[in-house]
């Protein structure tokens, strides 16, 4: 059983990413449940999806119970740190989307070191991914979300094969399939070959 908590900002392709994870699980012959955020929350707000792989009934992941937190935006990784525990790997994109409250309420966007330090207090490991850069290198700058799916696969915590993810990407991406597969691989390699501290 693997519980993946996906978080980011509306418009980052999180629902697509969660569907690829879902399709990969089905291809691997496993049960999967995804929960999605629709409606009002999507207008530039924090967006959450969950993917629970295995014999589960509930689609939700209570506090402290995520195996992986997959964050598409740096600040959001910190915001949902309550979902993590000493067993959790937090994988976050280094992308920063400055919320309007930073401008209007003069609040401070935390530094990378602050984010890393706070998450390290709670989670087992914090892994940072240059998702946007890797997507650009693969020739699909808009596919940061596919890089993040690769990063998830690279943790090895989903117990799904790389080939299941790749097939799932082929199924759900209409254009630039080759480049998107490259984006996936870049995310995968970035995590699977990381140096552990």
């Amino acid at each position: 059983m693997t519980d993946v908590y996906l978080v980011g900002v509306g418009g980052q392709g999180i629902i697509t990413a969660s569907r690829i994870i879902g399709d990969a699980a089905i291809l691997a012959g496993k049960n999967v449940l995804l929960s999605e955020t629709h409606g009002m929350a999507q207008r530039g707000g924090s967006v959450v999806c969950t993917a629970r792989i295995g014999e589960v009934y509930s689609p939700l992941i209570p506090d402290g119970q995520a195996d992986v937190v997959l964050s598409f935006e740096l600040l959001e990784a910190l915001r949902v740190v309550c979902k993590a525990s000493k067993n959790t790997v937090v994988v976050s994109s280094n992308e920063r989307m400055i919320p309007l409250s930073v401008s209007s309420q003069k609040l401070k966007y935390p530094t990378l070191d602050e984010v890393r330090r706070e998450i390290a207090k709670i989670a087992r490991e914090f892994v940072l991914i240059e998702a946007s850069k890797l997507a650009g290198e693969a020739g699909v700058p808009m596919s940061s979300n596919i890089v993040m799916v690769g990063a998830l696969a690279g943790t090895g915590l989903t117990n799904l094969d790389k080939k299941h993810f790749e097939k799932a990407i082929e199924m759900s991406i209409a254009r630039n399939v080759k480049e998107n597969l490259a984006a996936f691989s870049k995310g995968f390699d970035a995590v699977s070959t990381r140096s552990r501290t």
Partner: protein
Amino acid sequence: MLLLGNEAIARGALEAGVAVATTYPGTPASEIGDALARVAKDAGIYFEYSTNEMVATEFAIGAAASGVRALVSMKHVGLNVAADALMTFAYTGTRGGFVLVTADDPSCHSSQNEQDNRYYALLGGIPLLEPSSPQECYQMTKDAFALSEKLELPVILRTTTRVSHVRGPVVVGEIVPGPKKKEFVKDPKRFVTVPAVARARHLILLERLQEASKLADGSALNRVYRIGAGGRSGIITSSAAFNYVMDAAKMLGMSTDVLKLGFSHPLPTHLIVEFLKTHDSVAVVEELEPILETSIRAVAQHEGLKAKILGKADGAFPQAYEFDQAIVASGLVKAFGLKGEIAKTVSVDLQDLPVRPPVLCAGCPHSATYFAVNKATNRKAIFASDIGCYTLGVAPPYNAADLLVCMGSSVGTAGGLAKVNDQPVIAFIGDSTFFHAGIPGLINAVHHGHKFLLMILDNRTTAMTGHQPHPGSDKGPSCCDITSVSIEEVVKGCGVKWLKVVDPYDIKTTTDTVKQALTQNGVSVIIARRECALIVKRDQKGAILKKHYIDQEACKKCRTCVDKFQCPAISSIDKVQTIDDTSCAGCGACAQVCPHKAIKEAR
């Protein structure tokens, strides 16, 4: 295949041979209609986005009373609008299968309340099915049509956000087209509910409910799941709560029996009695109202049963907000006095983190409208708001909402506000919401001479729920030929004498027009018309937009562009204001907002 709960409902309806499907979009129900809109033409069924839930329901009643199968879907508060039709349709009953889907929203993820629509089943005497998973959404939609025809009654299929918006594996069957036409056989003693008919039909409804209760007792949708070796303690549950019960029981290592009610009204009384007889204590686990709990207590009292019934009355389970497996586990520990270990969570102090609430998009015409209104009124006005993206104007810097209760309420409440207040009153309503529920309020205001300004924020679509068309749209869904209804003509037809149409991107004209409107006696109407920026962005893919930038030499750091205006593309970090090139929609509103002309169009 992996299907969203809502898509599974659409699939189930197609396999059940539905002939007519209607809806008014609303989260978390919208994807049922959206899925059917996409396939309606190929499937040969009739689908429409109706003007509101009442019309959607009445339309489906007309079809089902004739004998074909009809599906109508809506969010929970939509059923308040449709209730008038539904309550009496239970008296006449139906010929063709009639299924009404209500998608409830515990925790108000995208709603103004978290009312529990199972009460409508009790109120109207209407059989109720409650799926827990996408597979059950599919299956129970088919079952609901069969049940509706067997009992000749409408059936409510009730989901929640965590059923409608969960994607999971669904095994589907064959689509079997049903009859698309049936001749209405006249039977006024059944279908025309004058008092004499209504009185007779009420007795028939009560008889049918007796029959329905027997069907519920024998239904495969109501079954016991044994966990471990079972035991003398049991759980009765339904809907999404069932999922949390199953995971919580596993977390706690419980040995118990779980009675899951998929067909929960009328209550399967015999099944409940048997369960209460074979268990010493029974926890009733349901989100929101203690509907099962209260009915089960009544059954126990009636039958003189001794089983201890545990639930919300003893404080084991909360009556507000949605559950998850952790909440249910802690409730079960409390209810049964278990020694279960609930994993402690680490509390983290995140109070200083910048919040990220939903906001109006870059290029959103509502932003420009609200800026103009604040400028025109110097913020000395009362704002009656309504349901839609523009409700987000409640937040600073616009503070453009002071009262909101339901769809269309801006127009009605504005009259009352104006009657007892000396400040100017401005009502804001979206185009789709105006057609949905704004028109009677406007007629009332004209007729009684109420003095306020109604601003119809016309972005040409139902934006919040996913850009569904409405009666004023130029184009319908691919399945439909439509005639566009002019808002101006409707407003004039309601008797409004002072009407202006403005482009909100023209802030000066909008501001002046608002000032002018507020000098009028009686009701004045401004239509602020500009297409939703997201649609423009989608349709103009790759087109060159008039991107804007802030000339840092001309910028006087007055912060007007972030303190009085709000655009996700404009940020102010370390006292420097900049425009993000990729998010800028090129609307040019900010250039008009800047008092120092420091915001310029990029060449």
